[in-house]
């Protein structure tokens, strides 16, 4: 018993007291800022190099729904593009994921797009069913970490549950493979109404590096509105938790 007491003492308090005010390490690759517009030649170079065609030439911008956060564009144009450690990049408005040149503005939720029932029913208790649809297991591990002893999203009543029958919505990771398309649909259908859909990670939002693969079938996403996009490769637990808190209207 004394050994366990020693371990508990060493363990101390591990939870992050305020999940909305954490400062991540300087090198963390979060929201990029385009301080000044590159010239045409430079634009051509980075657009061609970007592995997922996340850089839009006209008007110049970076689509975080497609970006794999490799930071190569910053290495090419270090005085024009900088990836900051701002991890609050989740939003419910797909258009807002595009970072425009010359604008250093945080990515925010679009309150007009939040469905009324979300805040009415789920504000104090949100149970989610996770579907890994060909995710590479990094986003899955970060979602697990969201509930661990450090991030402890359970404090807000947000939790992953074992069955879609017990869930208020689904969280999809991965580009949705053809082989997982039917199971994704069945899982969604088994979730009672009203229900939400959250896409976590670049692969889920746009297909990422797997866009265009014959083995991917994203038709499920054509049928339903998405309530939250959580970019990242993988998405950081803080990105996920802060995104949900904004969606639920729980953030100060």
């Amino acid at each position, binding site marked *: 018993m004394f050994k366990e007491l*020693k371990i508990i003492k*060493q363990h101390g308090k591990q939870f992050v007291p305020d999940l909305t005010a954490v400062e991540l390490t300087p090198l963390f690759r979060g929201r990029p800022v385009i301080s000044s517009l590159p010239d045409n030649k430079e634009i051509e170079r980075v657009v061609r190099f970007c*592995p997922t065609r996340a850089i839009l030439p006209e008007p110049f911008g970076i689509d975080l729904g497609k970006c794999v956060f490799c930071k190569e564009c910053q290495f090419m144009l270090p005085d024009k593009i900088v990836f900051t450690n701002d991890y609050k990049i989740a939003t419910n408005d797909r258009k807002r994921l595009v970072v425009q040149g010359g604008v250093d503005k945080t990515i925010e939720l679009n309150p007009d797009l939040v469905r009324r029932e979300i805040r009415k029913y789920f504000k104090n208790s949100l149970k989610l069913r996770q579907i890994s649809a060909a995710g590479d*297991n990094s986003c899955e591990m970060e979602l697990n970490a969201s509930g661990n002893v450090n991030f402890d999203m359970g404090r807000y009543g947000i939790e992953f549950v074992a069955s879609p029958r017990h869930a208020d919505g689904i969280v999809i990771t991965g580009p949705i493979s053809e082989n997982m398309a039917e199971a994704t649909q069945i899982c969604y259908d088994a979730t009672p109404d009203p229900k939400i859909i959250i896409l976590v990670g670049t692969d889920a939002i746009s297909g990422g*590096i797997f866009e265009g693969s014959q083995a991917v079938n994203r038709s499920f996403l054509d049928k339903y509105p998405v309530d939250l996009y959580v970019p990242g490769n993988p998405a950081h637990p803080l990105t996920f938790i802060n995104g949900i808190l904004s969606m639920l209207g729980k953030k100060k």
Partner: protein
Amino acid sequence: MNEKNYIEILNNGSPVLLKNIPVLNYPDFYNLLKEMLSDPDSHCVAYYAFPVENMLKFICCIANDKTSGIAVLSHEQKNHEIALLSLTSEIFAMHVYEREIHENFGVQFRNHPWLKPIRYPSDRFYKGNVMNNYPFYQIESEELHEVGVGPVHAGVIEPGHFRFICNGEKVLHLEIQLGYQHRGIEKLMIQKNDPFQRMILSESIAGDSVIAHGLAHTGLIESLAEHNVSERLQIERNIALELERIAIHIGDTAALCMDVAYQLGQVVNEALRTTIINTTQLWCGNRFGKGLIRPGGSNYPSTDDFIKSMLSTLEETLRRYEDITDRIYSLPSVLSRFDGIGILTQGQAKLTGAVGMAARITGIARDIRKSHPFQYFRQHPVEPVTQISGDVLARGMLRNLEARQSIGLIKQWTKKLNEAEESNKKPDYNYKLQPESFAISLTEGWRGEVCHSAVTGKNGNIIHYKIKDPSFHNWMALALAVRNQEISDFPVCNKSFNLSYCGNDL
């Protein structure tokens, strides 16, 4: 053995010209493989087929632990649908390779006991094979019942389907159907035909083995481009690989504790894992090391400040990890759930061709870091850690010992890092690959041996790319280990192996 029947690669990674790989007729190919694989120090690291012109070319690579050599031999076949004699009936470990060739190209293997789908690739030969009609093994009996689990599981994990045949609470047989995670990575490797996109794809094969797969890919590309990297960079890559191993082993210790409801063990290890992956994040901005491994150089050379911070984190982690694991592995309530549960015998490990941890828990001292060293392991091979009991306890203990060993290794290497010359070489994506060649690159990730191999065409473009994750072999080992166990022990057995779904499905 006749020397001219195969070509031997002496260094893990060195390319050979395609035309120098002997092409044997099938009976000779078959007999030579049978003879080579009867040596207990040899195992097959790659066996696959790919179309060239109007032929199907089979390439097989046999690695020998003692000589560090990799023997490569090949066979060509005009008629895809011809029935070949199955090697599996002689050497069961070959079953997955033959199943894969059958699934991709329709090649029949006579006397193969189990020609079932591996991953349902989008360009599979038999389009009628779909996820819903997998031919599960069945037993007609009024006393037995079946339990189906998945593809969507209770936890936040990847999809796969487990079909148990149970006698009461006991598992008679488990069959695992995979393929849900298939993203067509091998095909994309060719289609994308862009060096940097291939690098990003390699990092996305399995998110828990970013460094292991990233290194296998860069090792392959650098050898085909005849590009040597500095000793300093090799040491940094080794450190990254061992950080990945430490993080997963500690995280899995937490998961094992969770499955047997030992909450202190779970939360303490979760917190320790966080400190390790945050160290990787401090280094490169990503908790899983995405972006850290690049061909020819690095965007994140290690700084003195980082090394200092990493060493102090490792020191603290080691101390606390020792305290908690000493407690875990002496608690009767934990041991009774680990000890003697889910035993994989050495015989079964050999039979299934188990690699990595799954082999080492049965006393097989097989580790690519020693037998076919890569990167800085060439100067500093690692002595494999083994266990003999093959149960959940052995898998937990192996993690414990390997994590401690890796922390020690990193400490030693950082001293070398100070002596090594500074190198700030940036990554190079404009490499020219040696044309009409074959190369194979092996690394030892935390799960086991990772194998990437490629064939180049006339202009040095990659015409075929093959990836193999250790899970490819080890899923069958898990299925055997849970026989005669209580079905309620399945979660802890599964967790103790922690195999990759996406690594198998690609």
